């Protein structure tokens, strides 16, 4: 009887899975991608957590938020959505409102933004955030972007950087370039849409002041927002317009705000792409215009004249190792800490372009949360109703240890994402 019941349940589950699969198959390719990548930022079943301060400009200035949970304001959420800073695999969908813990690293990042904003001389900080998988690298980028928006910076984020190199969008050679460079008009238009949506109010106050010979239409005294909108609608003009807008934004001027230029999953851009040239040789990612543009800024070949920050983070999960990239980061980190590290393999060829792109960058290693921070975030999980355990010292210590010394993604997995974690355990 019992076995038969189990069998029926299994059959039912299998039918449900098959139905879900079939429903997915009914969607077109692009719709399937949309469903797969959709970002859900609210959970109506989670409890409202009271007493969490909003992440406002004032809160950032006061710096009393270290180690505390903060909640993103709706306006910031809209801007972050526009620059695609949220990732679908982050745990936003479990909670009522998008909130996050301001770790020491996040506060350090906010301090750096403050230093650049208040500095007399414009300064360009170039940082690569590294750390284990799910240690919060992408969230740190998101926190930096949120803080930059609150401080009135211009933000440009390269969303889904893998889309640039996996040969999923059109490409075309740029005439008269050596080595040949390749443009991706759709991606340029996408970036301009992002710039116009996320930084609209700022860009609509700024007008063109320079001459741009590549623009073939009358643009004098038009606002940068209008230029971005034009480029977003017209793929053919997107790259020249992007260059023009960037030139205007990086022209030394006391009224132009600093720029935050970020790229997540940057390791995808440190190897030959899936595109091929007419001889069927792979095109190096650094030959794609937008990647090259980012790398020029990451390497310091181009500086942000009004100050700013170039921020990148590799993904540590599910990707094959890129030897030159990993080696460079190891060497830089060792130098920063005053250590020495092993040299490059004498018989292996290093990717010179990757080495050049990482020259002089600062490496910021993210470690797990400390116990106090872990306690704060576990309390938040419990207050949201997503964790039904008593959060005391023993529980925090247990989960902190199991999560590999406070890896925040693992903490979430152990407490929120695990169904068994919701049932009170024997010891509570």
């Amino acid at each position, binding site marked *: 009887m019992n076995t038969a019941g189990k069998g029926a349940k299994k059959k039912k589950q299998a039918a449900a899975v098959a139905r879900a699969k079939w429903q997915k198959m009914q969607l077109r390719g692009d719709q399937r991608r949309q469903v797969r990548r959709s970002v859900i930022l609210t959970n109506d079943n989670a409890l409202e957590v009271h007493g969490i301060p909003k992440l406002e400009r004032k809160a950032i200035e006061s710096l009393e938020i270290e180690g505390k949970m903060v909640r993103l304001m709706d306006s910031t959420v809209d801007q972050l959505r526009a620059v695609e800073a949220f990732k679908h695999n982050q745990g936003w969908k479990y909670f009522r409102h998008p909130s996050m813990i301001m770790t020491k690293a996040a506060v350090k990042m906010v301090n750096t933004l403050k230093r650049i904003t208040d500095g007399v001389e414009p300064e360009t900080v170039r940082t690569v955030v590294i750390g284990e998988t799910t240690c919060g690298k992408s969230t740190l980028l998101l926190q930096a972007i949120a803080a930059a928006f609150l401080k009135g910076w211009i933000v440009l984020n390269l969303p889904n950087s893998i889309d640039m190199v996996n040969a*999923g969008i*059109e490409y075309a050679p740029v005439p008269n370039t050596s080595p040949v460079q390749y443009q991706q008009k759709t991606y340029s238009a996408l970036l301009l849409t992002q710039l116009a949506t996320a930084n609209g109010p700022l860009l609509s106050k700024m007008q063109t002041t320079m001459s741009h010979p590549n623009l073939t239409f009358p643009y004098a005294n038009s606002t940068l927002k209008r230029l971005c909108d034009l480029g977003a609608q017209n793929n053919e003009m997107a790259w020249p317009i992007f260059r023009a807008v960037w030139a205007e934004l990086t022209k030394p001027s006391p009224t132009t705000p600093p720029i935050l230029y970020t790229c997540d999953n940057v390791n995808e851009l440190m190897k030959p792409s899936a595109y*091929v040239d*007419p001889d*069927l040789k792979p095109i190096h990612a650094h030959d794609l215009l937008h990647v090259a543009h980012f790398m020029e800024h990451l390497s310091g070949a181009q500086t942000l004249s009004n100050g700013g920050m170039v921020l990148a983070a590799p993904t540590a999960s599910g990707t094959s190792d890129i030897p030159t990239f990993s080696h460079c980061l190891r060497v830089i980190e060792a130098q920063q800490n005053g250590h020495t590290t092993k040299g490059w393999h004498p018989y292996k060829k290093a990717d010179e372009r990757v080495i050049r792109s990482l020259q002089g960058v600062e490496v910021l290693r993210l470690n797990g949360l400390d116990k106090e921070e872990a306690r704060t975030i576990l309390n938040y999980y419990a207050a949201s109703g997503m964790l039904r355990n008593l959060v005391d010292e023993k529980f925090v210590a247990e989960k902190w240890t199991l999560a590999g010394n406070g890896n925040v993604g693992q903490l979430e997995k152990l407490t929120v994402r695990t169904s068994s974690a919701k049932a009170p355990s024997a010891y509570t």
Partner: protein
Amino acid sequence: MVLLAGINMDGAQLAKLALQSFYGIGPSVSQKLLARNYIHPLAKLSSLQDKQLESLNNALASMKIENDLRREIRGNIARLRDLGTYRGRRHAMGLPVRGQRTRCQNSSATKLNKVDRRG
């Protein structure tokens, strides 16, 4: 609808697969044609620019594909048969040509090996 080598093709089809639908074009040739015209592997036919389509059509016009290729293959087999060679005779008998066993497992040979080979 998109015209490729004189044939109306569904625009929603992948360019790579549309090319492979021609007799004589497989994955490798299709990839070369795409790369030569800077078409990414996931491009749909409808998304191709006029210039790219024209270039593809020109390339296809200069290649021996479809009936031209079939005619050539048939001609080659007929020549072997006319000369009375072993390979020609084996083709005519619908038996394996290259020394394979005939006791069993010769269905491919039965299907394909004919003087008037279809494709």
